């Protein structure tokens, strides 16, 4: 163990793994979207994010200090003008960055009922009032006592029209690309119409989060953190099981030999030539592919990766003097395998387990990229699949393509480093140089 820890590569690998493991454990508590693991494909969970924007830290003077992520504007108490046929309610919103341009504006009304007339417009901060001014027909319809609301300071119109308020629900209005100095909203309600409650305006920025968002408005960093657990789980479990089965089959085939040995070798030959993909394609034709189908097929195919090494090592060990001596004093093949050959090979197996993890993570990512992965979990391969399908490469959305692949590479490297550290310990001839 000390020898293992004294190797620099092993320490580096373990350090990275510790960070990765910490992120996997505490990830759900540090990401901005804690429910993401269950609602990754729930569009409404992500609807307030900007779609396909770079990380917040790319903001700077070069893009006019764009608004980071999503900012909720401050809502003033409404200004109400009571008329004979209805009432005009005006709210003013402030708190956006002066001069910053938002990508979208989300106007929400929490209550109310029935059709109302709505006008949303830009307004400078010092202007008072604002409303459906300048339109005689509307003003007349409103019957607001002929007193035209002050039109001073009222800027560009953002929205004008009739909207349908849902009782107990939320009206959501997306308005593209606005400057964010100040906004006013005026609503005309007929007499007796229910009060709409206090509306809110969310300014959707041009950048978001630590690693930006994908085309479906999902936070890339959250996805990255959620992907760790699947990569770790799949990599560790599958590599443990495949190496274990390769180890057992290899030693038993070498020590028992005979028909069992030759059959195992034929089966090995078959599976080592056979590609995994056709089976996955065929399985996914019958039912939706899941991580467990992949794990099962990987187990069926990847044991061959350790079998041959173990087999030839076991043959060598079997021929060593101390084992022949054991046979001479009456040790049967079972004794030989369990007391001599397996214990001698076990350290190799640990090194092989660590070293086979990257291959399994790569295989899962490749399968997912082809669209044959588990569509219900958030894996790095799935993220890259989405990125490829939705044109992240063509549009240069590096924040979407770069992180998942880097994560795969870093995790692969950490296991390879640990594996090499172990290998140096169990293979002293290698560490001599």
């Amino acid at each position, binding site marked *: 163990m000390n020898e293992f820890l004294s190797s620099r590569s092993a320490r580096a690998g373990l350090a990275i793994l510790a960070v990765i493991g910490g992120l996997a454990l505490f990830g759900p508590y540090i990401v901005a979207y804690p429910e993401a693991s269950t609602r990754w494909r729930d569009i409404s969970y992500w609807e307030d994010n900007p779609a396909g924007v770079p990380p917040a830290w790319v903001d700077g003077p070069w893009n006019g200090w764009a608004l980071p992520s999503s900012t909720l504007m401050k809502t003033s108490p409404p200004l109400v003008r009571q008329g004979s046929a209805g009432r005009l309610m005006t709210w003013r919103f402030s708190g956006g960055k002066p001069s910053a341009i938002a990508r979208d504006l989300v106007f929400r009304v929490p209550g109310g009922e029935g059709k109302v007339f709505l006008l949303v417009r830009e307004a400078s901060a010092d202007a008072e009032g604002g409303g459906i001014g300048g339109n005689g027909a509307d003003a007349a319809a409103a019957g607001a006592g002929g007193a035209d609301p002050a039109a001073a300071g009222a800027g560009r119109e953002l929205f004008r029209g009739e909207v349908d308020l849902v009782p107990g629900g939320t009206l959501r209005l997306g308005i593209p690309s606005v400057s964010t100095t100040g906004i006013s909203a005026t609503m005309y309600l007929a007499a007796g119409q229910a009060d709409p409650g206090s509306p809110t305006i969310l300014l959707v920025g041009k950048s978001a989060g630590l690693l930006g968002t994908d085309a479906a408005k999902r936070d890339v960093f959250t996805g990255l953190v959620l992907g760790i657990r699947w990569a770790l789980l799949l990599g560790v479990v599958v590599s443990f099981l495949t190496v274990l089965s390769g180890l057992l089959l290899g030693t038993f085939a070498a020590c028992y030999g005979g028909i069992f040995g030759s059959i195992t070798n034929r089966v090995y*030959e*078959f599976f080592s*030539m*056979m*590609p995994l*993909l*056709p*089976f996955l*394609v*065929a399985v996914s*034709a*019958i039912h939706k592919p899941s991580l467990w189908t992949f794990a099962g097929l990987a187990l069926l195919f990847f044991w061959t990766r350790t079998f041959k090494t173990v087999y030839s090592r076991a043959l060598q060990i079997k021929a060593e003097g101390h084992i022949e001596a054991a046979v001479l004093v009456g040790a049967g093949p079972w004794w030989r395998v369990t007391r001599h050959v397996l214990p001698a090979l076990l350290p190799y197996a640990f090194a092989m387990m660590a070293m086979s993890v*990257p*291959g399994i*993570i*790569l295989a899962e*990512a*490749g399968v997912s*990229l*082809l*669209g*044959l992965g588990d569509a219900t979990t958030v894996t790095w391969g799935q993220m*890259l699949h989405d*990125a*490829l399908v939705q044109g*992240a*490469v*063509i*549009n*240069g959305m*590096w924040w979407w*393509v*770069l992180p*998942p*692949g880097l994560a*795969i*590479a870093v*995790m*692969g*490297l950490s*296991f*390879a*480093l640990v594996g*090499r550290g172990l290998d140096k310990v169990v293979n002293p001839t290698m560490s001599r*140089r």
Partner: protein
Amino acid sequence: MAPFASLAIRRVGHGLAMYLLMSLAYSIVFNGVADNALRARVDEEVAVALRSSGNLAKIDYDRLREETREAKLRQYRLDEALPSRILWRAFDVATFHFGRSQTVTSSSGDRDVLGIVLQALPNTLALFGTEALLVMLLGGLVGLLAARRHGGALDRVASILPMVSNGLPTWWVGMLALMLFSYVIPLFPSGGVHVNPTPTGWAGIVDYLHHMALPLVTLVSLNLWNPAWLIRNLIGDTWERDFVRFARSKGLPERRVGIHVIAAIKPAIATMAMLGLVQSLSGNILVEGIFGWPGLGGLYFTAVQQYDVPVLMGVLSLQTALNLAGLVVLDLAYDWLDPRIRLGGKA
């Protein structure tokens, strides 16, 4: 019989048996989907055959349709029992009778799967043959230089990069390369093998190489580190063997000693190179898919996306055949080169 001839027959026989077994496995795995594809094709062909018989009386028309249908089902052996269907399909696949594709077509719009597959093969050979060659050349060079300056900068880089490249998805590096050098800075084309219209003569070759450059560089820059590390270790191990000590102790200059070392590791390197070449025949599904390279792997990528089972089976069968043939040839080459066998087991 000469020992080499009998060995050759055994090797070829083993390869053929393997090939038939794997064809059978493909046939079993894809049985359900392939049957559905064939049924759809039968319906299509019945509809075509009856197009001119629309003016028949309803009863006659129905009878004719049933007869045509049954004849077609018999023709494609869909009326036979499951085991027999599987065996027939395995036989068809093994003998390269792949039938017609469902959606994928060749460049001339043809739907004959064998034609489609054979059209893709040269592109795979060009890209991956060049790749295997460059990987061996550059890998050998890096390995040699790393071994010469033991513990030097190159040696340390060469010891870490294999671990990095083993865990790195090549196709992801391809995505980055494509994004950077094809879309952000449009230096290279984003897919295919030629611009449209295809230039002729030398310009055509240059155009082909221009299309090949990005995937080739991506593949070589990632794949060269494993052979480099192996060669570096091989040289290091050989350097400590007795004959090298002897050569040194008798006063040979280092350069001459190096020649002895290289002569000793030549067979191992040749094995590595040949194996790399054989494996490269199959192409790479994901890398070709990302780069839109119309080789076997790219075809496989498309066939999976579009669920075109006849094309899938065609590609698989050809890849299997090439791979097995390559391995058999490789084995025979060793046997031939091994004096113990070549000289009739007397040496």
